[in-house]
């Protein structure tokens, strides 16, 4: 059969020759994976290859797909996040046995449990190769390794059985010798919409072979050839007869709901529920954004000023307006009096990173916070200083407003604790970024009943103060 596959189109040739030892099965499995992907007819830019740590971690580097190397054992966790974000990417994991079932064992179980649409190709070479040939959970019984010179007295783990028990919907096993079966089985995994596991039993001629009387790489492949037995034949054999055999073929195939599909359904349901119960989502005309599209807000001061809650309410109001929000909070070691920071990103589009870099809006409610953060605000941004505490105004490129927020809350409204909501009201007007109606809805929901009306009063008082500040400025 002639080979129609133009393999070089799928390789990053500048990375070659590979760093793997002579006869290493990883190269064979990577090739089998590429053949399966090519058979699917997918554009290589629609494929994401994920690896963890170990010799196997180099696998995606040799393939010209979208690729990422993650931390040890966490490849399935990373892949889950990426697949959630980009459900259309065909996500293939190239993992070692250590990454998959030892260090990453729990992620593996939960990936299978969720039945998330990932294809996990486990390159099982029965050993921790990169670190010097120590035993791994997949090392066969009584085989030697650098840490078990008299033989491994533990039984090896059967990762396919674990995958089946945990709920994977496609589980298959093959070896690095059986190259055509390998490509076919991986293709089966790619076709399955759910969690697919293809275990490829591989030789590690350096770490495993030399310690176990396999003198050459060829001897290891002969062992794989001779130890393999098809799942159909294996059915008639006793466990005794199956000892030291490698059962190959499709071990399990089933159908059940897939994680991302179910997640999308639930998300839709939740949105509909919010729509049916939610109050006004409309923006007031004068509130149309001063910073279109994307803005970063930092609320800073000391613990006890309610800045974390303010951040949460700001985020929720943003979401109520149909935008996206991300909120991060940082509280100093003391519950009260320590530094406190609450950061919110408001965006019309997706938020890739929840960490803010240079805020468009800063609220500083202590001198320390003002000194620390004023200079970092974008020049076109806005700063609101609580002049109750900020006596010295730091130099900053951004437009700076001052108002005795806490003093007003304490003396005019009768409770200093509403300073946070008062400040939100002021910011809503100054930035033109937020619907006060949406904020009011959130305050109504978030604040205990006995201070609810006071908080709403503070919010609208803040909005009026904001108007005055803008007018004075003009």
């Amino acid at each position: 059969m002639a080979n129609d596959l133009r393999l070089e189109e799928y390789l990053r040739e500048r990375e070659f020759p590979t760093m793997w030892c002579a006869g290493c099965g990883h190269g064979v499995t990577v090739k089998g994976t590429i053949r399966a992907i090519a058979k699917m007819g997918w554009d290589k830019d629609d494929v994401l290859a994920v690896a963890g740590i170990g010799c196997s971690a180099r696998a995606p580097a040799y393939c010209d797909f979208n690729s990422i190397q993650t931390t040890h054992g966490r490849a399935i966790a990373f892949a889950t996040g990426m697949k959630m974000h980009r459900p259309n990417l065909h996500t293939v994991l190239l993992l070692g046995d250590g990454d998959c079932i030892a260090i990453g064992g729990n992620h593996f179980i939960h990936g299978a449990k969720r039945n998330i649409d990932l294809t996990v190709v486990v390159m099982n070479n029965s050993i921790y190769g990169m670190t010097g040939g120590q035993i791994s959970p997949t090392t066969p019984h009584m085989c030697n390794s650098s840490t078990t010179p008299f033989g491994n007295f533990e039984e090896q783990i059967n990762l396919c059985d674990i995958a089946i028990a945990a709920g994977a919907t496609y589980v298959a096993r093959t070896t690095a010798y059986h190259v055509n079966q390998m490509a076919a089985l991986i293709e089966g995994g790619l076709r399955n919409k759910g969690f697919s596991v293809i275990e490829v039993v591989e030789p590690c001629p350096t770490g495993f072979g030399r310690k176990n009387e396999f003198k050459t790489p060829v001897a290891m492949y002969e062992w794989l050839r001779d130890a393999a037995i098809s799942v159909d034949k294996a059915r008639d054999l006793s466990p005794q007869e199956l000892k030291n055999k490698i059962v190959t073929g499709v071990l399990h195939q089933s159908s059940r709901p897939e994680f991302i599909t179910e997640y999308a359904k639930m998300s839709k349901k939740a949105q509909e529920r919010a729509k049916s119960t939610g109050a006004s989502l409309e923006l007031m005309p004068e509130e149309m954004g001063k910073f279109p599209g994307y803005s970063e807000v930092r609320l800073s001061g000391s613990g006890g000023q309610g800045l974390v809650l303010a951040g949460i309410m700001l985020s929720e109001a943003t979401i109520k307006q149909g935008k996206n929000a991300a909120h991060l909070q940082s509280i100093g070691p003391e519950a009260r009096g320590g530094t406190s920071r609450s950061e919110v990103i408001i965006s019309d589009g997706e938020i890739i990173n929840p960490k803010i870099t240079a805020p468009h809006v800063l609220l500083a409610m202590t001198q320390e916070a003002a000194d620390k953060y004023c200079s970092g605000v974008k020049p076109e941004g806005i700063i609101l200083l609580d002049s109750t505490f900020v006596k010295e105004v730091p130099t900053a490129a951004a437009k700076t407003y001052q108002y005795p927020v806490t003093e007003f809350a304490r003396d005019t409204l009768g409770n200093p604790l509403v300073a946070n909501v008062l400040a939100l009201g002021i910011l809503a007007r100054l930035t033109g970024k937020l619907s006060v109606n949406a904020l009011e809805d959130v305050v109504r929901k978030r604040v205990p009943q006995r201070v609810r009306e006071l908080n709403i009063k503070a919010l609208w008082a803040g909005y009026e103060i904001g108007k005055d500040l803008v007018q004075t400025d003009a």
Partner: protein
Amino acid sequence: MTKKKMQPVVNLAWCKACGLCIAFCPRDVFTAAADGRPLVTRPDACIACGLCDYRCPDFAITLAENKVGV
């Protein structure tokens, strides 16, 4: 019409002399050189099954059309 004749081509820069292609070729197309790397000594015997390509861990073998030998 002449029939296309395929034969293996070895990229010696990527080959690590593991010997898999030599050992598992069903038609003994390869012979080991002194350094263990494969020499294509019986190109006419090749049936273009592609197994040497698929089994080569180093992506060092491809099948190409033999333009001279036919």
